């Protein structure tokens, strides 16, 4: 009996820390699907909530990474992929598919910690499960004076081979606008 108790502890200790975040995120999406009538509303809520997280997360990021101001959008892309994603999600997406103007790129995620053990039920084909991430990126970048558009263009949850997030630079934001919750 003692050996079994020890085994439980060992197995439990091997659970990655992402379990808590992943499970909590799953519970959130489930709750939102209950609260709202359609996937579009859920997607919007996830984006809003992500935005509210992003405008605060950026401070944590800047404090812990001691990254200075990025010179251009290419540098921003690298910082997002190699520093931010690594720090918060433990993955390093690749940066590809730059537009000729250099104002748009893709992040390709081989794996997505948010979707571990998740399967989309049949009646949620237009749900963008990980949409929180888009809001987070948008909110965080707004706090460093960049207005961006962020969206998923491929999603392994929907049968694509990879998960692809497309980020487009819209414009620079004037410094004096206050950040509000959405």
């Amino acid at each position, binding site marked *: *009996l003692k050996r079994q108790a020890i085994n*439980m502890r060992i197995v439990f200790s091997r659970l*990655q*820390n992402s379990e808590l975040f992943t*499970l909590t995120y799953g*519970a959130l999406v489930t709750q939102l699907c209950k609260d709202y009538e359609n996937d579009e509303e859920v997607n919007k809520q996830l984006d809003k*909530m992500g935005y509210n997280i992003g405008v605060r997360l950026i401070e944590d990021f800047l404090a812990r990474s001691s990254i200075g101001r990025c010179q251009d959008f290419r540098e921003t892309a690298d910082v997002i992929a190699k520093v931010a994603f690594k*720090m*918060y999600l*433990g993955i390093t997406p690749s940066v590809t598919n730059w537009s000729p103007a250099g104002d748009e790129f893709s992040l390709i995620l081989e794996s997505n910690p948010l979707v571990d053990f998740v399967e989309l039920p049949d009646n949620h084909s237009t749900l963008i499960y990980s949409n929180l991430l888009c809001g987070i990126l948008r909110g965080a970048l707004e706090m460093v004076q960049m207005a961006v558009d962020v969206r998923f263009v491929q999603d392994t949850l929907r049968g694509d081979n990879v998960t692809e997030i497309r980020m487009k630079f819209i414009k620079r934001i004037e410094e004096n606008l206050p950040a509000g919750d959405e």
Partner: protein
Amino acid sequence: MADEVLFEFLHMEIVSHVYKEQQSSKGEMDSKERTMCVSVLESMGFRVGQGLIERLTRDSPSFKDELDIMKFICKDFWTKVFRRQVDNLRTNHQGTYVLQDNKFVLLTQLSSGKQYLDQAPKYLAFSCGVVRGALSNLGLESVVTAEVSVMPSCKFQVVIQKL
């Protein structure tokens, strides 16, 4: 592996969202709405707590008794979920346990002392659910509540339900 800070931010935003959603147009929340919010958060936590334990084997009993399970909750589980061990466990040996965490991770960002004390229950509901969910998958049905008198210290009361 997701950073722990990400969970904390997500939790705060979930609490904020749930309360915003329940807010009817009149402004002040009534106690029925507040109870609803706590209930929603608690049941989300319950599913998470169950999920955290699900990975463990569920064959024959792996803990020798109820107290052993509670010790697991106070040490291994609390460390995994709340990043430290419970500081103090008390029991009346009749199914009631009080778990005291002096620096509860989800309260430390709020304040230390008495400021925002009335806000604390919002930030404990989910965690109560997590503990109740974990116990449920370990074979124990319970009622879990929490109280705070001085932030960020809090006491979780677990009352095991005898069937």
